[in-house]
């Protein structure tokens, strides 16, 4: 056993908390049209000082606001090349957010995300270039194309599981690419549709005002994607799906209580596909063209890298992943091909060390710390023995700490009293006049706490047939059966309980 050392515990708070005055009137504003408050403030009593403190329980809105506002205000001061990197980041972030809805919320492992974007982009661009539809209508044609294509893709998702569906969707993307490349009408341009009209005037294209306008558009696109995320993931549909999320049994349970979660999954898929259609139309307008490159595997894998690095299933993961990969891929273009290797290395690093991407690192770190604390504590604290200062911070009733210390020492004394003679004395007469030693041991046993305390169960009314149970200590929670031994004499049963308790004592 290691030497007992008492480490000092205690920490100053680092988090800034409001110190509200309770009698001051406080008007709580809400996000218009909802019952939500702007920020999730909660008052607590600090259990160290008992003073009232106001904590922002959910700081995500704050981080989002700071991040987005910074992006919006810093970008105009960046050089031209960086502005377009930021714009591309916004577009990828939007795609990623919507993809996260499909994979994370709906739980459909589709790799046809870029295919949906591409198909919508091609149809919207074609409508503009060949049919002369004005550009604003592209933002309607795009999502309609996405909706229809999404609905077609959704159909097999209920039939095929995981990997097979992923392969299918990859195949669909490849078919799209081959189809576009082989279209005779587009052969001249290598499968691309060019000269697409745009919200960016033609003479501003690739000029600073045009880039800035493009950035504003892309930024709004990302905000739109975030809004879709919020509405789908945090409202009814998302909640329904979360009920059924963790396992197959949950799905069965969800269906049994009347949640049609297949339908909810399809709805999420179709809504996301329509939104991806908007992204497609925007994409064609932003570049004033659309090329088969959008269907390519390397694009898809880049997107996949973003998801993996950021963390699957959360919007902030999608955005942060997009930022990292875009900066490396597009911002450090002078590095040349090694930058792709860099992305791959980051991806491998994240998958090896972080279970749920960079955005899950915090929780993972906490779990890790708790596990370490548990291991160390287990080494430092004997079973049922006294608590060390670290553990004491988690025990509300400090008297409990004394009980532990006292009982530990008492047990040590009682252990010495357990002798074969003492056990024989109890066996002779469990309810008799007992020696001082036996009386002390028995009284310790009888005073034990309620949880897992032994009782004897008379198995049938009026019959001398017993077994041993242990009560739960929680009202309404039934006792558990300790073992399958049965006793036909109550004295035997009393003694069997005694032996169990002696065993517990000696083991402690």
């Amino acid at each position, binding site marked *: 056993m290691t030497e007992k050392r008492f480490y000092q515990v205690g920490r100053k708070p680092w988090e800034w908390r409001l110190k509200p005055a309770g009698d001051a009137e406080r008007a709580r504003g809400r996000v218009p049209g909802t019952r939500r408050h702007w920020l999730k403030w909660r008052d607590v009593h600090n259990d160290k000082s008992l003073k009232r403190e106001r904590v922002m329980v959910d700081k995500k809105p704050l981080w989002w606001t700071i991040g987005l506002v910074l992006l919006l205000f810093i970008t105009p001061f960046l050089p031209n090349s960086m502005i377009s990197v930021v714009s591309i980041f916004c577009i990828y972030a939007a795609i990623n957010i919507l993809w996260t809805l499909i994979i994370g919320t709906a739980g459909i492992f589709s790799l046809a995300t870029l295919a949906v974007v591409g198909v919508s982009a091609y149809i919207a661009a074609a409508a503009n270039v060949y049919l002369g539809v004005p550009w604003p209508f592209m933002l309607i044609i795009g999502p309609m194309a996405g909706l229809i294509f999404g609905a077609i893709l959704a159909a097999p998702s209920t039939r095929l599981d995981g990997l097979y569906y992923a392969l299918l969707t990859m195949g669909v993307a490849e078919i799209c690419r081959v189809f576009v490349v082989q279209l005779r009408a587009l052969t001249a341009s290598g499968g691309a549709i060019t000269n697409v009209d745009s919200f960016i005037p033609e003479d501003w294209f690739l000029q600073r005002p045009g880039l800035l306008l493009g950035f504003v558009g892309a930024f709004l696109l990302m905000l739109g994607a975030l809004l879709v995320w919020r509405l789908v993931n945090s409202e009814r549909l998302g909640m329904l799906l979360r009920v059924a999320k963790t396992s197959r049994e949950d799905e069965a349970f969800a269906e049994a209580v009347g949640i049609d979660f297949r339908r909810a999954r399809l709805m999420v898929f179709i809504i996301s596909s329509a939104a991806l259609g908007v992204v497609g139309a925007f994409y064609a307008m932003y570049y004033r063209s659309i090329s088969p490159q959008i269907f390519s595997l390397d694009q898809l894998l880049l997107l996949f890298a973003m998801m993996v690095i950021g963390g699957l299933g959360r919007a902030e993961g999608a955005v942060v992943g997009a930022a990292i990969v875009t900066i490396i891929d597009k911002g450090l273009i002078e590095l040349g091909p090694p930058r792709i290797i860099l992305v791959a290395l980051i991806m491998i690093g994240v998958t090896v060390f972080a279970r749920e991407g960079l955005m899950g690192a915090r929780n993972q770190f906490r779990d890790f710390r708790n596990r370490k604390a548990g291991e160390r504590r287990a080494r430092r604290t004997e079973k049922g023995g006294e608590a060390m200062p670290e553990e004491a911070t988690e025990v509300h009733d400090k008297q409990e700490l004394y009980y532990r210390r006292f009982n530990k020492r008492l047990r040590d004394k009682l252990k010495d009293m357990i002798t074969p003679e003492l056990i024989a004395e109890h066996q002779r007469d469990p309810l008799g006049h007992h020696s001082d030693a036996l009386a002390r041991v028995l009284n310790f046993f009888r005073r034990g706490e*309620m949880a897992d305390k*032994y009782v004897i169960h008379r198995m049938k009314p009026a019959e001398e047939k017993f077994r041993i149970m242990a009560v739960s200590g929680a009202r309404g929670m039934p006792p558990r059966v300790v073992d399958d031994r049965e006793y036909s004499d109550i004295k035997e049963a009393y003694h069997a309980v005694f032996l169990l308790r002696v065993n517990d004592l000696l083991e402690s």
Partner: protein
Amino acid sequence: MTDIRLFGYSDPLSARAGEPIDFMVSAEGASEVKAELVRLVHGDFNPEGPGFIEEVIETDIPPALPAKRQYTQNGSFARVTDPGAKLAPDGAFTIHAFIWPSLPVGSRQTIMGRWSVSGSKGYALGINPEGKLEFWVGDGVAVDQITADAPLVPKVWVLVAASFDPATGEARLRQIDVQNSWNSHIGPVTPYDHNSHTVQKLRCTPATADAPFLIAASHEENPERGRFASMLFNGKIDRSGIVARALTADEMGAIAKGDAPAEPLAYWDTTAGYTDRGVGPIIQDTGPNALHAEGVNRPVRAMTGWNWTGRDDSFRLNPSQYGGIAYHDDALTDCGWSPTVTWTPPKDFRSGVYALKVSAGDTVDRIPVIIRPDAPRAKIAVQMSTFTYLAYANEHLSFDAQIAQAIVAHTPVISGDDLEYNKLQEFGLSTYDHHSDGAGVCYSSWKRPIINIRPGYRMAGMNFPWALPADLSLLWWLEHAGYDYDLITDHDLDREGLAALAPYKTVINVTHPEYYSEGMLDATEQYLQGGGRVMYLGGNGYYWVTAACPDDPACVEVRKLDSGSRAWQAEPGEGYLATTGERSGLWRNRGRAPQKLVGLGFTTEGMDRAEPFERMPDSFHKRVAWIFDGIGDEELIGDFGLALGGAAGVELDRYDLALGTPPHTMLLASSIDHTDNYPLVSEEVTYAFPGRGGSQDPQVRGDMIYFTTTESGAVFAAGSIGWSQALPCKGGENNVGTVMRNVLKAFTNDGPLPGASYTGAEKHWR
């Protein structure tokens, strides 16, 4: 095959022949039950005794009864019927209440409101699962709420109020600190800030719910169960009300000072209605509409209120500080089931303990009922201790009380029925249990299935019968020995006083007459003064100040305080009975030690083993020597018994001149050789020092005494719960029975008692 479950109770628990008895049965898994009446002859299957005996009695009860599942409303709350929907205002309104929440965190609770959970309609002020005050409204589709900032601290008084104006949608929720040095669980030195004041626009307005206005609960209904109450509150609620306008800060300040609001729609003044003799279950609305609230499952009144300042420690001194009413989510005083069968025993029906034996499949339940003769018929009355039966009804000690095994020095032996009752948690608690917030249980009633008055039931903690099933041993022996007896009950004595005892030559107290009302003590005293003869054959009798509720005798009240073997301790200022205005606790603390009445009083208890009595020198005096006719000089009396193998055990009473044992009392016999698991009781311990157990302290013993009163009255007392349970041993022919026969022979005869003439001063040569 589905499990069949049968539960039932009788109302009343004891009836006179010729008066109707309702039997309520709940049957799950069966739509019909077989029914027959049995007479309970002996209630323990111990092989040392005659075994479990019941006798089928021919009656006009139909042999098959249709039965259904009956539901039980648990939890205490108060109901305002409000048929005119006066408490569903169209315009702005404010609801306010002083509260002392005892378990704020965990589940959603309602403080008060006209809220339908199932309909999502109406409004209510409550506490959300996080433990914060919340006011919510619903229009049947949407629900919206405003939440207070400050977390509620358990057992600290605050004034809470919610205003809502449908014209603007503005809701205002206030929580105002009213803690003082006396009224709360913790003191003002704690730096908590209990205040909160939030304002917010709500997105819907309350629709009028098809629901009563409830205090401490919300209305709910479903097709299976019908209408019931849920989201129950734990803690105390003092004065509360509704005003048909949004109250200003000044008006709230006035309420926080203790003023009633001006022009209320309703104002439940919980301090109104107190008299010197207690307070009833109706909470008065002193507002213009007189919408009184009616307590369900007996909310506990006579509790300290938000403005309690400690000097007045009874509501009788200052009702205005006793507005607290305690509500508990696990209180139960009336299952409210509908009768399955009503049966009237014929007027000439033999007095005894009976049970309606209902069965379906393999499941059997026996619903006990005590039948008293239509008019006194026998010379002997056995007083069945119905108060005690209720006090212990459905005790949970073996499952809930950590210290129980150390008290009884036993490992509990639980039965399948115990497991079932414990799992259900549906049929309420005993006065030995605590409510979910830790408060002691002060009410117990017979209007619910009670497991431990079933014949054959053994108290889990000790593995022998307790109270009613144990008392059957005495009845079996009386019958075996050929004595006719009438049964009366504590309730009869409490209601009728001396008249219940007067017709009898002798009255026998059963094993454990622990719970006594003032009227019962008075009647017994008058009976003895008038020449009556009492055989006190119990342990720990005449102990707790108890009362039957005047509006519902099915329910008894006790508050445990000061000293004594108490499962709980009433909070300061809350030791007086709401039903009578008396200070509760031990009778000996109120000048009526049981020694003054029957010569003995509680001295020790233990449940590991029981011992015999040994004759004391007084037993050889001619005044009393007749009691020992047929018994050897040094013969141990009762070294056998169904309870722990001895006549002196379980709970024991002692002779003590200092506590008022009559000075001429003869100490006939005492028990010997108790273990240290029999400690001296706490009310005898002034200074604590080691060695107060049976092996070291001479006060740890049970005594057998005798004294005479005026008019040839007398008391024979054997202060032990084990006494009656020794009688059935050896086929009923044993030396405990010999003592009983000697005493009964004398006590049932008219005229002077044997030995009464030996009152001369002794002139000894030896």
